[in-house]
């Protein structure tokens, strides 16, 4: 299964999944959300964004939802994405993995952040 492709989970894919944790978003909103949650360090271009979306979509971590709620005047239909339950699970696993890593970094006095 294409799941292999996401092991280890690429940063872009993880960020996209995180951005969808609060609610459904369309492509551009995901990009802005990722930009915001990384303090502007990660700006996904259309290619990376949609390729990553496709990859996590294929892995069943997110799903497409009908964007009918966004049918404002003059706006064409946009695709919205939602985090699936398995996606949420994987995101949690990934976060825990990173937390473990952080713990080690802290013990080794490489990372001195007090929070997180």
């Amino acid at each position, binding site marked *: 299964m294409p799941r292999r492709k996401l092991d280890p989970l690429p940063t872009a894919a993880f960020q996209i999944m995180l951005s969808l944790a609060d609610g459904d978003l369309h492509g551009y909103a995901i990009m802005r959300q990722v930009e915001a949650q990384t303090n502007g360090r990660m700006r996904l271009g259309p290619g990376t964004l949609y*390729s990553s979306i496709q990859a996590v979509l294929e892995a069943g971590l997110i799903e497409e939802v009908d964007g009918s709620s966004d049918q404002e005047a003059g706006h064409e239909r946009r695709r919205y994405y939602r985090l699936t339950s398995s996606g949420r699970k994987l995101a949690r696993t990934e976060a825990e993995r990173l937390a473990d890593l952080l713990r080690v970094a802290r013990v080794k006095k490489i990372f001195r952040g007090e929070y997180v």
Partner: protein
Amino acid sequence: MSEKIYSLLLRLYPARFRQQYGAEALQLFRDRLRDERGLLRKLLLWIDLLIDFASGIPQAYRNTYTTTTATQAWQTVSGLPTFRTLEEEPLRPGSVVMGGLFGIATLALFILVMNHAAAYHPFSGSIVRLGAAPAGSRSSPDVQAVAEKLEEQIQSSNQLQKCSFEKLEMHPGNIGYVKLTWFPDPASCRAVADAVMQRLNETDAVIFDLRDTRGGYPEMVRLMADWFFDHPVAWYNPRAASPEQLVTDSPVPGSRLADKPVFVLTSSRTFSGAEQFAYNLKTLKRATIVGETTSGATHAGTRTPPSQIALSEPKPIWEGTGVQPDVRVDADDALRTGEDLALGAIRKK
């Protein structure tokens, strides 16, 4: 304008990706263009996009697009069964690249095989190596064995005989000996003639036995003579159909015969094309003619229509008189005399 550029760049992505996300990617680009104003931000946007292309395209090609296209197909037909034919699918650039690579690989394999096949063909490149075997003891025994086997092949295949080369031998003292009954048609015997000349390359002197040569194709007469010169020389040809036939095509690539002594054996039976060969090499002081005065034949057997021989003289110079030998001996003794002279010439060198 920039939108156009971007949509062109989007074409680098796989067709499936464009089909799926092309519109949205363009929409996203438009959104960003709208939101990010100012020269610096525009510049940053483009840098972003270029980096995005570099990292996004490989990923886009890795995706399979299976699940989503399936649902999409389902949606478009809304319950009605349809057949999605491959013909309607645009050719993916990946397939084109793979096809190209596969084509090149096949071609390379073909060339490799052909090159190897040539090594076992009795009358092409192998002759060069073949010639070395009897000529000296330089080559290793197994190479020699292969060469001998190939030589057998030559003999058994009758190629030489078919092309009127009655004998191709190495005589004591590393003298190459060729006896031919006819200068054959270059159209069918050029390769064999070249192989013979290649073989003679390995010798120290050459004897052409034309005592029983009835004539032949003037083109072949000259083709063989080409090997004996290191520069083009005027070539007398009463039947020349074009000015090119009045000069030798020398040097022949790979020829090492230009400075080797040549002896031509003649008899009163030496006829037509063979007389032309003898006459030219004698006049050009390239060969020593040993034997008897040639028959002095006309070119009665010409196949060239008269209109095409306008350049030439109506009669060959030797008509009626024949070509006189440099060393006059009986035809039956000509070979022995020729060998003695050749040995002397080799020693003198």
